[in-house]
């Protein structure tokens, strides 16, 4: 894992723990777990995450990219943000 993705992962994890799980316990968040299935995010929770990612990482998420596979887990988000930062 590159240092860039490590930074992204830390920020994403921090945001989800603080703002969606209201917890400080790192053990509660598995990077591969589906946040939708676990009930951590509801439909508007995804919009919150997108707003956070856009603001934090200077990316723009297109409507066609608003797919569960991009935002359903920490690892998916990290991959998605890394890809956008590398290509845009």
């Amino acid at each position, binding site marked *: 894992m590159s240092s860039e993705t490590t930074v992204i992962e830390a920020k994403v994890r921090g945001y989800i723990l603080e703002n969606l799980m209201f917890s400080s316990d790192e053990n509660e968040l598995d990077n591969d777990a589906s946040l939708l299935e676990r009930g951590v995010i*509801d*439909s*508007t*929770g995804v919009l919150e995450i997108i707003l956070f990612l856009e603001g934090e990482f200077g990316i723009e998420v297109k409507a066609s990219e608003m*797919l569960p596979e991009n935002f359903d887990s920490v690892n998916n988000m990290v991959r998605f943000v890394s890809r956008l930062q590398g290509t845009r």
Partner: protein
Amino acid sequence: MCGIAGFCGELPVPAQARVILERMIHTLHHRGPDGYGFHVGSGIGLAHARLSIIDLVSGEQPIHNERQNVWTVFNGEIFNYVELRANLEQQGHRFYTRSDTEVIVHLYEQYGDAFVEHLNGQFAIALWDDERRRLLLTRDRAGIRPLFYTRATGNLWFGSEIKSLLAVLPQYATLDPLGLVQTFSYWGPVDPNTLFKGIHSLPPGHILAISDDGSETLTRYWDWNFPSLSEPASASRAYASVEDATVELRALLIDAVRLQLRADVPVGAYLSGGLDSSGIVALIRSFTETPVRTFSVAFDDAEFDESEHQAAMVRYLGTDHTTLHCSRRDIGEAFPQLIRHTETPILRTAAAPLMLLSRRVREEGYKVVLTGEGADEVFGGYDIFKEAKIRRFWAQQPTSTFRPKLLGRLYGYLDHSPVASEALAQAFFKRGLEHIDRPIFAHAPRWITSQRAVAFLSDELRASVGNWDPLTWYEKRLPADIMSWSPLSRDQYVEAKTLLAAYLLPAQGDRVAMANSVEGRFPYLDHRLIEFAARLPPSWKIRGLTEKYLLRRALAGLLPDEILKRTKQPYRAPDSQSFFFDGEPLDYVADLMGGARIRAAGYFNAAMVGRLFDKCRHNRAIGFADNQAFVGILSTMLLDESFLRRSGA
């Protein structure tokens, strides 16, 4: 409309009966500011706080029969009292007042416990039969008027609001964790549960009989009931065509409105700008001689405001109209008073503007308002019904890419719509498809979303309810044959028994109107309309994705097209945004949500609440779940401050 309170059984010190009754009924002054009445006898104490609406001169309660051996106090209205009285007089009963209350004692003499089946109204009644030494408590069919009871000191105690019981039984001021997790799931405690340990809410449509030996018998006399799908259509309904049903529905609507306009004081109406309340006002205007005085709420925030549609109706019907402009700050500042009236936590703030509106109604000299409450439950108006219809359609072909696209037709009125992204909405609504064969299928997503507030409970409180699950708990209460009903009928039943009876009618209906001594009346909840609509084919309620199809047909010609064809916009108000201004909380919010107070109360995890508080404070809580959790926690803390903490619990 009024407040009632009392007890059954011999008191340890009988001479104190009157003083005790006074202490109870004085807490209900807001329900009945026009005078008090009492009856104390051997083994019984009845108290009444009166809001005089019918028979202003001689309608004081308690009321008795000819021999003075049957006594009653009652809160509400018997709308068909004129017809009942005429019938009873023909059978030899003599009346000493002109009030609707008096029909109760004579009906009881005539029909015994079945008297309640003759009533068309909204009521909570206590009736004492001195010869049988037996108390009856009963509530109306839908649960419009409240009635609470408990057992203590060897007596049964009852009252219109819990505060009347706590006035003499302060030991009951402790929180019931089951009531709290129910509120955080279904939006309100489900009868007989309340937020107070040991205090019960009499379920709607039931009679509780307390005999001389102290034994209790709870009997259901009415319930929402739907036909089995296996019943032949000819047996389940009398309408050969949708045209015939439309004619019958209009006639029933006119009669329901005509009955509910009965009062010896002027009657007003709420006008939200939607189909339901506009329909009521149009019916009054078109089919009665009653002058129409209307009232509405307008919001600064465009997401919640319906004043454009309200203005259209006012112009169309030419009503004398008052608009209450409600700001976020108004809601935040009124919230503590609201919770003192609801006596339960709530998950949304929408009741606060209605409490402020009833104050305005009262200031304008009105004691009675008709509203559109109930139409969505009776005629299939809620998005949850359409959402379930699409999800069921989808579940039949889970691989279909076309079917879930229909979800995009829902929730267009939300700023942060859950269907803003089609793919994400599908992922969200796909959750719970596995419950397709369960009667709570429609409600599972809502209850699971609301339940996110449960995560904020302290470890101790969560442990006290164990692995309580809102889906299985509620399923156990449902009628045994519910799966033989149509899917829409199942959804309507669950909605009527949870959201309507546990939240809308008490917290957003009775309590916020009575807070200012105003009586709400709900023509769509006339039981004849409920029973009529229950027998309709589901496609006459929701046609395609058009909700309340038959109601729209019945109101055609009475309303402008823009109202008649308008898609339902649920009544909502700003939630967590009502408590912060420029990033600063209102003083009481800062105090109650602070770590020290949260820890001292012991209900919630202070660290988690702190994070939620910061999120709301910085206006980052845009979803239902966060907002509901915040409002639910704040209102629980207000309940604690108003009722629980004082007892030292």
